[in-house]
């Protein structure tokens, strides 16, 4: 039935579009057409509904009070001017652009602001890309992919979301790249619940959020545990913001740069991290309140989902009220960290063994204070870890959780900074539509060096 409706709409549009356009590119029925808003279609939604795979929906500058849902594969939606092509939810509409189960959809060079949920949201897709986007003052996330694989977020900017500016959740392997983004004044700069496996977060800026880069885990979303994200070459600074909106979890993380919470086998290399009230880079266990029951079937949506070492051999008694996920097997190497209030580098283990949990390790970092003291000697990445001394100067995580924190400011009311000069997409008016199909090109991580201080 849906197909029939779509065809009927296309028919109408072709009939309408050919009259004034000579059929040169408009209409959307030809497979490589350009559908212009508002010249040919009054709304972005109307153009999107009329588009065929491979089509380009090209949107002129203006303010569009729309919540757009995309259901057609491989449509590309592009603004002609990144800062002046604006979708505005006016704190009434839910998502600026929501891609539901449509594969390969790319969104480029426009702004989504004032939505009650998300600026840009892909869910249940194979292939997605967000390029040259601004997501400003949205109620949950800025730029968001859930249960989706083979994706790219690049050259984009997110500010003022109480959850994360950029979020990729519930995928393994994700096959995804976050490259050259700027995330500020959010609850979290980056959050990724249960997301990993060829997931790269590189060359980006995370500043003035409550906390910077925070991969995390939970049974409330599929694909747990989180593992295998690669975080390289980012500038992470001043994530101590107390004047924005924030969800509780981000509030707990306040004042930390890169915080690996209950996650496994992540690589954190050659980032520059500075000016954090608590820690620069830390691995900590994640307490999860009220864990969900999981059936065996539900462990299958994500490849290789399994029970991590260190959490087996537990008595099968009643569900605890709180689950403690240990951070395990994370490698923190070659970062440059300074100006942290408590410790530039920190390890907070559950103590699963006398050595660091699952081989969490720290090596070749340039850092001042560590918690515990001499952390890099005690938890080396090559060599034998210490079996004692981890209490000496250890973080008091309980005290950090319990400390007073500035209350959230409703996201609608936060006075956000000017986004500044964010780059325009090159040749936005003429570049051909480029849907995101297949696995993205992964960055050459080895070629990325520590970025300069901003």
């Amino acid at each position, binding site marked *: 039935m849906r197909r029939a409706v779509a065809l009927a709409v296309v028919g109408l549009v072709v009939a309408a579009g050919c009259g004034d356009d000579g059929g040169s590119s408009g209409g959307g029925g030809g497979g490589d057409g350009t559908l212009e808003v508002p010249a040919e279609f009054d709304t972005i939604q109307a153009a999107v509904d009329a588009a065929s795979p491979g089509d380009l929906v090209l949107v002129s500058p203006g303010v569009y009070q729309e919540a757009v849902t995309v259901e057609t594969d491989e449509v590309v939606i592009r603004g002609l001017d990144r800062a002046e092509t604006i979708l505005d939810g006016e704190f009434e509409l839910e998502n600026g652009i929501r891609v539901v*189960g449509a594969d390969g959809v790319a969104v480029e060079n426009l702004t989504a602001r004032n939505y009650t949920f998300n600026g840009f949201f892909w869910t249940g897709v194979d292939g997605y890309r967000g390029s040259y986007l601004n997501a400003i003052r949205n109620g949950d996330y800025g730029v968001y992919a859930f249960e989706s694989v083979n994706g790219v977020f690049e050259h984009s900017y997110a500010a003022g979301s109480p959850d994360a500016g950029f979020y990729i959740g519930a995928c393994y392997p994700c096959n995804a790249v976050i490259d050259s983004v700027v995330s500020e004044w959010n609850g979290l700069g980056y959050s990724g619940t249960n997301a990993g496996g060829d997931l790269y977060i590189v060359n980006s800026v995370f500043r003035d959020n409550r906390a910077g880069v925070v991969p995390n885990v939970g049974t409330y*979303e599929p694909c747990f545990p989180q593992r295998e994200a690669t975080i390289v070459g980012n500038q992470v600074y001043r994530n101590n913001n107390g004047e924005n909106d924030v969800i509780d979890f981000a509030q707990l993380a306040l004042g930390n740069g890169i915080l690996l919470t209950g996650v496994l086998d992540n690589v954190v290399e050659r980032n520059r991290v500075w000016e954090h009230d608590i820690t620069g880079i830390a691995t*900590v266990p994640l307490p999860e*309140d009220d864990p969900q029951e999981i059936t065996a079937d*539900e462990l299958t949506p994500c490849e290789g989902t399994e*029970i991590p070492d260190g959490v087996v051999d537990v008595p*099968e008694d009643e569900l605890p009220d709180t689950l403690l996920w240990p951070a395990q097997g994370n490698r923190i190497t070659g970062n440059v960290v300074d100006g942290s209030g408590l410790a530039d580098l920190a390890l907070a283990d*559950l*103590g699963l063994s006398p050595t660091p949990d699952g081989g969490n390790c720290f090596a070749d970092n340039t850092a001042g204070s560590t918690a515990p003291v001499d952390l890099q000697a005690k938890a080396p990445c090559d060599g034998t870890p210490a079996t004692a001394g981890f209490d000496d100067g250890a973080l008091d995580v309980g005290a950090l959780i319990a400390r007073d924190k500035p209350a959230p400011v409703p996201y609608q009311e936060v006075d956000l900074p000017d986004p500044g000069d964010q780059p325009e997409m090159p040749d936005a008016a003429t570049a051909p539509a480029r849907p995101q199909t297949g696995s993205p090109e992964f960055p050459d991580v080895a070629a990325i060096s520590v970025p300069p201080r901003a």
Partner: protein
Amino acid sequence: MRLPRAVVGSAIVVVAALVTVGASSAGSDRDRGGATGLAPVDEPNERFFATGGQFAVECDYSHSARVDPIVWPGRSGRSHRHDFFGASAVDADSTGAALVGSPTTCRQRADTAAYWAPSLLRQGRPVEPAGVTAYYRVAPGVDPADVVAYPLGLAAVAGDAGATGPQPTGVVGFGCGRGGPVSGRVPSCPETKPLELRVTFPDCWDGEHLDSDDHHSHLAYSGRDGCGGEHPVALPRLTLVVHYPMSGDASDVALSSGAPHTAHADFLNGWDEVALGREVESCLERSVVCTIPESARAGR
């Protein structure tokens, strides 16, 4: 922070145990064999991430009144007291069509439907609920491609206000926090997991009547083979979760309709038709998770 081993042993993740526990319950079968079932084929309320599609809405508490526009239309004061959510102008005369475009307490403004449940009483005094989360999903036996949106004005009642004993927990039950088991009794909940009432509505329709004399017989619960017989039209499966800011001893809890086993809830469809159609088509027919409500996420 290094915790002593004893703490680790008692507090650490019990994923392995969860898998074992879950596997046994996943095999349970409450199939009633057709589309005229009195209860859903499974226990739909146990969890909050869907394996199929879903959309969800979150609505604050609106108001309470001795009003029931389905059971006692036009007769204010005749009903027991209800707590209302969603459309905020609901009164005894409300119809679905009149609700479209009206003010709503839902975070999703297109949802101008009305939801209501009996007031929860503690020592005879009403406990003002925080709000509801309404999950729209597809029952396991139903082909997602078959699901259509509720017709405007559809009236649905789930649970039996006149029940004299336990009702199926797949229809109505109480629980603590998000997830976890539901029970016909009102549990004593820890502060971190406050009390919830969870009600699942029938998801098969006769295709003809927006309501029926008994307010039930135009609808039925799907079975293993989906919808059929006198109720051939598959609808979304609505599970309404009412959140109460209440924990601790619940021995003094009753409902305005009577004992806790009289739990029920009502739904009067006043959704914006275009928006509802799009949610059903986008999220349910395509089996995509479109909303993860705040109440189902950590850290909210």
